[in-house]
């Protein structure tokens, strides 16, 4: 049995999912963070049930790919029942989706979430009346505090067992006549939906299904065309438009029937935006918040990093004494330890605090505010404000950054945002910047590299958007009310993201480190170094850095971890000049995304675009490193 969770962005759907699903979840306060669905097994009334968290969506009539995917998934046999999470404090808009879900022939329960919010807004909701009007169970809920969750799933389980699909609501008379007429041509053979709801979706212009009926009912498409034309002539608007308008009207009527609006209590949350979105103070606050954020993250990171690195260098020394680095076993073991150390000592101190901080900012609801403030700037590089999210996420890890581009509506924006966000130095690359430049040359130069990175991204953005001149539609973004994040959801989210790293990236890191140790043991590293020699030569770097660069494609931190080995275990500052350190670091910051990012790029944008972005990053890295090198020669 499988329950599907669906709701509009910011309805608290993911919070609910997190509450019941354990560690396997990702929540967001940001419109559509949950673009990939997440699944978890839960126990309801003594039965194991699969719970699927679907992307947040305002409707299913599909402008973006996530909506289409959701519609097709919900109508498939994989889903036995639907739990529709609705924000009680914005009932009229939320019920629009409910009306649409009633048409899917699947058992349905409405979870009326954020009841506390609704009460604060001075609303009284007549839940029994709403149940009667919708003819499905409606369960009040405060997901953030876990109130009503148990009741919801017990109800959902009962409804699923009954397997009694709800009745759809009826539209205006003229529309119903047309729907019946089209439905009369369908004999249920399509089996996706009942004839009437199927007719509605066809009238709305569901392309994939239209193609399907083309084969089964060759006489239907012309009738459909005529019906759509008729609606357009009589109503003055296109059919999909009229239908979605009808749904919204039904939802508004439902809401006004069941909601009694009382006095609204003005709270601190209404005041916060006066400062955080203020034309002057807003930016001051943004800089302060970001400064604090990174200060705390790296503060914690640097406190933890030194003792951890100490521990591992002792361990290496111990292994060296015990087995000797000149035996294959000794060299391999030291290689493995270095791989583990790379994960523990360099990435964890930074990644954990970063993800905790990001989860907090996300759940507070600050990310959309950043989008609001940064819209002007983002427009200059050919994007809109909400494309700032991939960039911010990129500072943690490029993988979620590329994934989050799925919330952007057109392909061009997605490509542009993905390409640019891979240039953002992720935690691993930041570790390289810190480990090399900040450590040996001081924080000022590390900061200069950050700034240089921003300039390069801006210039690349301008050039790319010049090459792809299509205009972005402009920002439309909901600013959700500020919420105090619950400890539980932030921890869950951090764990979930970390889990991905531990399971997928760390083994590669350890294996890579081992392979390198063996290569060096057999003196095979020279061959690989020759292979990338053209690049290292142009940049004025020693041939030995070739290998760390190659392994850096596996995981970025390898280009730091392995540099130590590749240079023969001496201090970086002895083997490389300051200029070389800077050149190397800048090249590492920009060149080829890591394997995991490449995999996501391929999934999100296709192989062709992945290759284009990869080549692009190499070109950018070469140019940027060369510029940095000459700047360093002049200025140092």
């Amino acid at each position, binding site marked *: 049995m499988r329950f599907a969770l669906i709701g*509009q962005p910011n309805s608290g759907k993911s919070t609910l999912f997190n509450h019941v699903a354990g560690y396997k979840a990702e929540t967001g306060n940001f419109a559509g963070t949950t673009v990939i669905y997440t699944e978890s097994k839960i126990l309801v009334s003594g039965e194991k049930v699969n719970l699927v968290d679907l992307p947040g969506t*305002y*409707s299913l*009539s599909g*402008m973006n790919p996530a909506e289409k995917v959701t519609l097709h998934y919900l109508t498939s046999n994989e889903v036995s029942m639907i739990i529709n999470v609705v924000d009680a*404090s*914005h009932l*009229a*808009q939320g019920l*629009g989706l409910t009306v649409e879900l009633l048409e899917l022939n699947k058992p349905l329960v409405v979870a009326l979430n954020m009841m506390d919010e609704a009460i604060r*807004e001075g609303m009284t909701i007549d839940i029994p009346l709403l149940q009667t009007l919708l003819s499905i169970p409606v369960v009040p809920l405060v997901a953030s505090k876990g109130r009503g969750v148990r009741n919801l799933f017990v109800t959902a389980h009962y409804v699923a067992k009954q397997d009694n699909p709800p009745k759809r609501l009826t539209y205006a008379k003229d529309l119903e006549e047309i729907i019946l007429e089209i439905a009369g041509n369908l004999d249920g053979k399509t089996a996706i939906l009942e004839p009437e709801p199927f007719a509605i979706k066809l009238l709305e212009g569901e392309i994939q299904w239209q193609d399907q009926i083309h084969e089964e009912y060759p006489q239907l498409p012309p009738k459909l065309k005529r019906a759509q034309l008729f609606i357009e002539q009589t109503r003055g608007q*296109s059919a*999909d*438009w009229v239908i*979605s*308008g009808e749904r*919204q009207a039904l939802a508004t009527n439902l809401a006004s029937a069941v909601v009694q609006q009382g006095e*609204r209590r003005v709270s601190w949350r209404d005041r916060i*935006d006066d400062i955080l*979105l*203020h*034309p002057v103070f807003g930016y001051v606050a943004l800089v302060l918040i970001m400064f604090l954020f990174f200060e705390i993250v790296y503060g914690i990171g640097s406190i933890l990093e030194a003792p951890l690195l100490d521990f591992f260098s002792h361990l290496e020394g111990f292994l060296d004494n015990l087995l000797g680095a000149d035996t294959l076993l000794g060299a391999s073991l030291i290689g493995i330890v270095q791989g583990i150390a790379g994960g523990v000592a360099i990435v964890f101190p930074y990644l954990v605090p970063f993800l905790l901080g990001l989860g907090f900012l996300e759940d507070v609801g600050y990310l*959309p505010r950043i*989008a*609001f*403030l940064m*819209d*002007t700037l983002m*427009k200059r590089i050919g994007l*809109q*404000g909400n494309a700032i999210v991939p960039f911010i996420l990129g500072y943690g890890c490029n993988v979620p950054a590329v994934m989050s581009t799925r919330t952007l509506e057109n392909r061009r924006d997605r490509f542009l945002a993905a390409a640019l966000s891979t240039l953002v130095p992720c935690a691993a690359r930041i570790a390289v910047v810190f480990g090399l430049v900040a450590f040996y040359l001081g924080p000022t130069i590390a900061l200069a590299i950050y700034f240089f990175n921003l300039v390069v991204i801006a210039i690349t953005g301008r050039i790319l958007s010049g090459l792809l001149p299509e*205009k*972005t*539609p*402009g*920002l*439309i*973004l*909901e*600013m959700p*009310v500020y919420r105090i994040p619950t400890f539980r959801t932030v921890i869950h989210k951090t764990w979930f993201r970390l889990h991905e790293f531990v399971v997928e990236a760390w083994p590669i890191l350890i294996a890579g480190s081992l392979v390198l140790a063996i290569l060096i043991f057999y003196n095979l590293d020279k061959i690989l170094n020759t292979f990338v020699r053209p690049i290292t030569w142009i940049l004025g770097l020693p041939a030995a850095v070739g290998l760390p660069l190659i392994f850096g494609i596996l995981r970025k931190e390898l280009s730091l971890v392995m540099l130590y080995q590749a240079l023969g275990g001496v201090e970086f500052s002895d083997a490389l000049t300051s200029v070389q350190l800077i050149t190397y670091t800048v090249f590492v910051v920009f060149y080829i995304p890591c394997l995991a990012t490449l995999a996501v790029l391929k999934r999100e944008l296709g192989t062709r675009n992945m290759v284009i972005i990869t080549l692009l990053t190499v070109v950018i890295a070469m140019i940027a490193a060369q510029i940095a090198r000459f700047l360093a020669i002049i200025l140092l």
Partner: protein
Amino acid sequence: MVMRLLDVKSGKKVCLMDFQGSRGLELKLRQLGLVRGDTAKVIRHAPLGGPLLVECKGRRIALGRGIAVKILVEEV
């Protein structure tokens, strides 16, 4: 007097009259609860050609200038 939402000063309340953009735009606005005939309040304009913050039915929505220019309103 009918005017563009973009030209409405902060703090003013307006009635949404017409959307001149594509259907997709109007659909998206509708999903966020911005429908013809609704009353909306312009909370603030972001500086330097940034977006507008609009409140409608208790929801706060940021609209880029390119969007706001396509929304015709009348002050109330």
